[in-house]
């Protein structure tokens, strides 16, 4: 079901979507909706679906499908829509390059190398996990240290267990979900260690993945050493004050597996190759409110742009990207943005980075610090009360043209501040 491979790729497309995960599928559907006729989705795996296929837990689709689905169910339903709409899907295929005129160099297991022309391109390559090198964890280079998402793929798709006694570093959602997953598979999970004073995953995952199984979460604590010869034998953990570990209170914990759940970074090799302009905070390309990047006709969406915590938001954002890519292909673009959003107090970033005063937008943002009873302010044109914000939970607001009727500037500061 989740695989097709058109024997005859068309030589030219209206829209080519790079990546067949939820963002890519959403973009393809959006492109079709806006009238693009020839749409191709390219995925490097043997089947489309992306990371959803390994996310076998429930909790997906409450916004988008109005019911609770598992990752594979969400993927399969979405893909059925894609195939129903006569969208070409090339799996086992890889985009090597895009040139100045949006010609796509495609390498495929079945069709070899092809250069396809495309009026618009959507980048939807998702993200990669940060690895041990990203946080410079000291210690020996043993086997048994792996990222949580890789372990998830091993366990849920390939039928391999990473070990018998695991420590999890980082309280990102994938780590929390793997704590439960490994426990259900008979692996002993000793604990989750988080360097920050607050958890990084959704609150509901702390409850149903850790509390339900009596797995302790140690905040302000991190792994300071990794021991073992060939295979991991133990880790040393220590409490931290800020980022300085207190070695006098360090503890050696025997284990044969260390899972890293320390965040994702947008997968942007292709975007870098294209010399797109980047946002240093998201590590993704800068996007306009149409999700167009700094290169004409190249759009981006999903985790390629910024890391989302819910696939439902990815779907929403990528359908928008796809619709605009489709309009671009037909020469019917909306007028360009005229307002830049400036992240202010307790706002790490805003996506899109610019908006237009003539239409509705959903702006996504992430906060730097947890805060209760706060006020989200959009310059002095609009404010909204929010009960609480957490760095792990993306905030979104609808920005409507009526807020901006009296506004004549070209930049708007976005703040999330305590209520007076």
């Amino acid at each position, binding site marked *: *079901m*989740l*695989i097709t491979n058109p024997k005859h790729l068309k030589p030219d497309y209206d829209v080519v979507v790079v990546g067949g995960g939820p963002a890519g599928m959403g973009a393809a559907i959006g492109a079709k909706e806006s009238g693009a006729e020839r749409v191709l989705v390219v995925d490097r795996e*043997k*089947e489309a679906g992306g990371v959803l*296929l390994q996310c*076998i*837990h*429930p*909790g997906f689709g*409450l916004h988008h499908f109005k019911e*609770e689905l*598992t*990752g*594979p*169910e969400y*993927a*399969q339903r979405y893909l059925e829509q894609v195939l129903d709409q006569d969208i070409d899907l090339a799996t086992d295929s890889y985009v090597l390059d895009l040139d100045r005129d949006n010609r796509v160099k495609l390498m495929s297991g079945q069709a070899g190398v092809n250069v396809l022309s495309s009026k618009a391109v959507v980048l939807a390559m998702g993200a990669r996990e940060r690895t041990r090198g990203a946080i410079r964890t000291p210690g020996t280079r043993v086997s048994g240290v792996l990222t949580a998402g890789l372990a998830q793929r091993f*366990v*849920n*798709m*390939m*039928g*391999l267990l990473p070990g018998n006694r695991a420590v999890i570093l980082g309280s990102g959602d994938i780590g929390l979900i793997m704590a439960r997953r490994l426990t*259900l*598979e008979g692996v002993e999970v000793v604990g989750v260690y988080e360097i920050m004073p607050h958890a990084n995953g*959704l*609150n*509901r995952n*702390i*409850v*149903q993945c850790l509390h*339900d199984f009596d797995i302790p979460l140690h905040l302000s604590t991190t792994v300071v050493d990794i021991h073992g010869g060939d295979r991991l034998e133990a880790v040393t953990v220590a409490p931290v004050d800020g980022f300085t570990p207190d070695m006098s209170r360090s503890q050696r914990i025997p284990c044969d597996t260390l899972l890293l759940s320390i965040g994702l970074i947008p997968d942007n090799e292709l975007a870098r190759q294209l010399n797109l302009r980047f946002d240093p905070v998201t590590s993704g390309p800068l996007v306009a409110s149409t999700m167009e990047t700094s290169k004409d006709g190249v759009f981006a969406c999903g985790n390629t742009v910024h890391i989302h*915590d*819910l696939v439902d938001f990815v779907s929403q954002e990528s359908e928008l990207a796809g619709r605009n890519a489709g309009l671009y292909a037909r020469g019917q673009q909306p007028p360009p943005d005229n307002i830049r959003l400036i992240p202010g107090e307790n706002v790490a970033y805003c996506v899109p980075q610019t908006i237009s005063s003539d239409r509705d937008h959903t702006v996504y943002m992430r906060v730097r610090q947890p805060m209760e009873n706060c006020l989200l302010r959009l310059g002095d044109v609009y404010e909204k009360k929010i009960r609480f914000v957490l760095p792990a*939970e993306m905030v979104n607001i609808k920005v409507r043209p009526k807020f901006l009727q009296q506004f004549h500037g070209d930049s708007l500061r976005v703040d999330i501040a305590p209520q007076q």
Partner: protein
Amino acid sequence: MTTATQQPETTHYLCIGCPMGCRLEVDDIEGEVVEVRGNSCRRGDAYGRQEHVAPKRMVTTTVRVENGRWARLPVKTRDAIPKELMGALCDALHTLTLQAPISMGDVVLGNALDTGVDVVASRDMPVE
């Protein structure tokens, strides 16, 4: 007897019904839930009442499969089952070996552990 003068006992829960993660307060008078506060939807009310009396969870896990595209088939309980049965259900599912092809929604284990809840496949698993 429940009278208006009795003070309810309040327990705090965090709703797992959706990613909003509402903070619930459940008022209990002599073992009966009298009020749920803090929820933003009906799911939250239902969750608070259920969680206070007899917690239930959806279970998702995988089952061994032969001849399929992947070695494991993801499965889920069609409905939530009592929380304390999660481990036993996974143990029961570990004893199964399925043959591809399998379709999404196929029953993998009917009436699991006499809960009245079926365990079903959560994707198609074609033959490879």
